[in-house]
């Protein structure tokens, strides 16, 4: 299996170099090269065989090219915050985003290293100038790319003022009680999840 990996890597490297991409793709590199808008090898091959007809557009031509990694630190972070049913923020330029990662609250500034973070139930704060917009995120992922684009995906995200404190207290009490009376592993896990989510909701309301 490891032998195949090296041959596949080498063959992949030669293919991508021969395809005439603007920057040869280096495996495992975290840099984000600007994608070409035109598939040059396809166009050349077409013109050799059918010189009179215009080559058809390939999907590459319709896609927006990936923004390149700027040479110097960019001033703004572009955030795409999406939910399954709506797109909260789409290409919004902000100064900083604080995400509730499983490893703790993480502050993302422009020029942050490329990261993939799993989110835990907590508060997502978007800082733009002097305004801060806070959302409570149930869980999800945050992909930060090297070109200062952040894609944050969550299953459920609500502004903090839509949360009802009395329901949170009730849920917290109910799940703490379930946790102490749980028997099977699955019940314990569910009760633990309930306690975690409700305590996060609680601290979001008070903090």
């Amino acid at each position, binding site marked *: 299996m490891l032998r195949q990996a090296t041959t596949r890597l080498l063959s992949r490297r030669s293919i991508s170099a021969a395809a005439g991409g603007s920057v040869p793709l280096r495996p495992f590199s975290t840099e984000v090269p600007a994608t070409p808008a035109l598939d040059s090898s396809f166009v050349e091959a077409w013109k050799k065989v059918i010189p009179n007809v215009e080559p058809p557009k390939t999907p590459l031509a319709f896609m927006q090219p990936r923004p390149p990694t700027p040479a110097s630190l960019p001033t703004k972070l572009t955030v795409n915050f999406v939910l399954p049913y709506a797109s909260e923020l789409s290409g919004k330029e902000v100064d900083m985003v604080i995400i509730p990662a*499983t490893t703790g609250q993480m502050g993302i500034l422009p020029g942050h290293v490329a990261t993939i973070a799993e989110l835990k139930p907590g508060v997502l704060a978007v800082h733009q100038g002097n305004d801060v917009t806070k959302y*409570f995120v149930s869980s999800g992922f945050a992909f930060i790319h090297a070109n200062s684009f952040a894609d944050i995906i969550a299953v*459920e995200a609500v502004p903090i003022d*839509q*949360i*009802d404190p009395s329901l949170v207290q009730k849920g917290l009490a109910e799940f703490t009680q379930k946790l102490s009376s749980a028997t099977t*592993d699955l019940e314990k*896990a569910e009760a633990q*999840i309930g306690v975690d989510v409700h305590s996060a909701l609680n601290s979001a309301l008070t903090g």
Partner: protein
Amino acid sequence: MASNAAAVPFWRAAGMTYITYSNICANLVRNCLKEPYRSEAISREKVHFSVSKWADGKPQKPTCLEVVVLNCDSARLVLGTESWNPVVFRIEWLTESKTSYHHNQDVNN
């Protein structure tokens, strides 16, 4: 080498997948919202489907029109009641508009 036991989250150790965990978290958050938002969120996440049993190669009348809001308890309730042999059942996922055609039992969980 580092220790072989990777630090698995408690829910995975208990046999739950990430999707189940994420859906449970989302349902808990939805249940803690203030009134107009709460009913909107819950109705947004409802799933409608009709189940018809097959006998002698012919579909029988669709029995239950189920409107399921999946949370940790109701998921087990719905899926655990009858034997879910996929050959014997036809399950049709409905959009909101088609539910009016079926005026059978409405199982609300």
